[in-house]
């Protein structure tokens, strides 16, 4: 599914990622944990293809194809989805309009017929119902006036509708109270599927109480310092990231 090989990334000449290796199989959930400033968000943005990051070495292989240098909308069409840490507001554009535009752009990329209005409404109804999201959220302008919890749920809804094969959740739990986090986690669990891989980027282990990962990696100082299973997250909870601070010093 996703193979990252010796990935080096700089921003404004400063090295942020210094040789990342990561291998995610179909259906797996991997959690990437680490202290602030360790390069977690950089990694998620680079996989999604955001401008402004210089790849100084290594490769990102997704479904056997080298993604390096590919435009973000092409990566999206190929099934990569990034749930944003800070979802962006698009004033005046209704959520439905935005989702229809996105879904149809992806259909066009694959040379498929676009959905007509009726088909689209059906998909929307189905997904909102499945995730327990009120339909009125669809009529509102994208993320405008949304609470923190609503914004994150909106990301999950978009993910459900765009149906990606690789979903990256960038600190989706940040800023959420425990109830909102449970709702989001429930949404993610519903989208767990044998053909879909999920990369959970998180600072805290509490999210992993609700979404059980197959693997946990600790990212610090631009490198993956340790990998393990769910137990590693619990260990981190107890000891903090201090160990990795020293390791890199």
């Amino acid at each position, binding site marked *: 599914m996703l193979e990252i090989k010796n990935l080096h990334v700089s921003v404004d000449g400063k090295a942020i990622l210094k040789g990342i290796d990561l291998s995610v199989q179909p259906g797996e959930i991997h959690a990437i944990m680490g202290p602030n400033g360790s390069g977690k968000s950089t990694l998620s943005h680079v996989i*999604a*293809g*955001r*401008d*402004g990051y210089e790849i100084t070495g290594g490769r990102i292989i997704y479904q056997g194809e080298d993604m390096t240098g590919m*435009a*973000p*909308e092409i*990566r*999206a*069409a190929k099934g990569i*989805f*990034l749930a*944003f840490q*800070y*979802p*962006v*507001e*698009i*004033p*005046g*554009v209704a959520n439905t*309009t*935005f989702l*229809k*535009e*996105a*879904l*149809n*752009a*992806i259909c*066009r*990329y694959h040379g498929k017929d*676009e959905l007509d209005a009726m088909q689209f409404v059906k998909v929307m109804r189905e997904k909102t119902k499945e995730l327990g999201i009120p339909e009125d959220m669809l009529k509102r*302008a994208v993320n405008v006036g949304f609470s923190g919890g609503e914004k994150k749920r909106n990301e999950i809804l*978009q993910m459900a509708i*765009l149906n990606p094969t690789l979903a990256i959740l960038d600190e989706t739990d940040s800023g959420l109270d425990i109830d909102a986090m449970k709702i989001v986690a429930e949404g993610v669990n519903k989208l767990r599927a044998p053909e879909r891989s999920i990369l959970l980027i998180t600072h805290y282990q509490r999210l992993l109480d609700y979404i059980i990962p197959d693997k946990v990696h600790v990212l610090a100082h631009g490198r993956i310092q340790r990998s393990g299973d769910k137990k590693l997250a619990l260990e981190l909870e107890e000891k903090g990231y201090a160990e990795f601070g020293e390791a890199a010093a």
Partner: protein
Amino acid sequence: MVASIDTVQQVKELTEEKYKYGFFTDIESETAPKGLNEDIVRFISAKKNEPEWLLEWRLKAYRYWLTMPEPKWSKVFHEPIDYQDAYYYSAPKSAADGPQSLDEIDPQLLETYEKLGIPLKEQERLSGVAVDAVFDSVSVATTFKAKLGEVGVIFCPISEALESCPDLVKKYLGTVVPYTDNKHATLNSAVFTDGSFVYIPPGVRCPMELSTYFRINAANTGQFERTLIIADKGSYVSYLEGCTAPMRDEHQLHAAVVELIALDDAEIKYSTIQNWYPGDENGRGGIFNFVTKRGHCRGRNSKISWTQVETGAAITWKYPSCILKGDNSVGEFYSIAITNNYQQADTGTKMIHLGKNTSSRIISKGISAGRANQTYRGLVRISPKAKGARNFTQCDSLLIGDRCGAHTVPYIECKNKSAIVEHEATTSTISEDQLFYLRQRGIPPEEAVALVVNGFCREVLQQLPMEFAVEAQKLVGISLEGSVG
């Protein structure tokens, strides 16, 4: 939104020339000699068999025009206009005797309108919108006249109205925009050739949208149409104009005048989709769109609402305004102005509150890209007698790229203590975050920009009649073609 997808497809269909309406129709036309003098004014008047009073009015305007300076207060820059280097009258020859029905119209002309997306023959069959088509200096076709006649609505070329209802024309012409108003309006008064005339009788709600399409075709020709709309007591009309021109290297002058009169309890909704040729990406050619539009809420409880989508023209100089004379009258101005490449726009409105409890609302959305510059210029004047007057103004500017400019120049003159006047303004850009967010969802950059801009303009787009809203949305995307990256 389907609109921005269509936009991108349409843009792709075009060759390197991005202006879809840039074709020229080879039609035999009858043209007056180049230049401007009293003889030309007399020639135009004679061509139209006009009554003596109108010729006198035109001549007064012409003589006054000679004494007037060019308006200098707007923030637009261009070489001085050589008024002698243009034709002031050009008419498709086949229309010389006036077509009696669409069957008598030059097929090539009909084809031209088909290309513009205005199939006149279809329009005659499909109910919904009545169209008056003005080609260079004359009106070539008006559809649905008979059906409108049943309810007493007059919708015809102004030249025809001068023959069929001269008293109405004489009573109202020049009462909102006098021939002394400004240099461009005065020139129009002297040499106006055609335009639409609308009269809605008392108590009638016009059963369909009325629409006029203006097309400049001939080279070196100015277009000077004059539109006069009168909504009598308790009536309602919604009117839309659209405009296009071929691509030419030289500038062409378009100096139109629109006068609206709303009597007691009447309402006029006037929408414009202006898509004149904007010039090429280096600023060569394009229409000078110097237009005077003004509405007079003459009666109590009357309402005039302007909606404009200004995407074309090399320079736009235009301030659709409302004189709120009747007590409780309402004026509205909804505007989208898009400038790309080297386009310039100085546009806005004037809301003149004279009556008691008059209210006005101004929503202006300006989008600048490339090296374009635009200015919102608006006057809100509350006269001493306008007790309880109310105004709300919102001016939002969106900048795309770092070489364009947006300027907001509000003038507020308040002479009555009971009035409430509000002005809000914002300036923003399309952020890199927004673009990345949309692209991450699979939307290519140009569609993403069209989507954000359509969202930015939504409040104004919503004001357009349904039939035209989609067209306007597409236009928004097309106008910004090439502005990303």
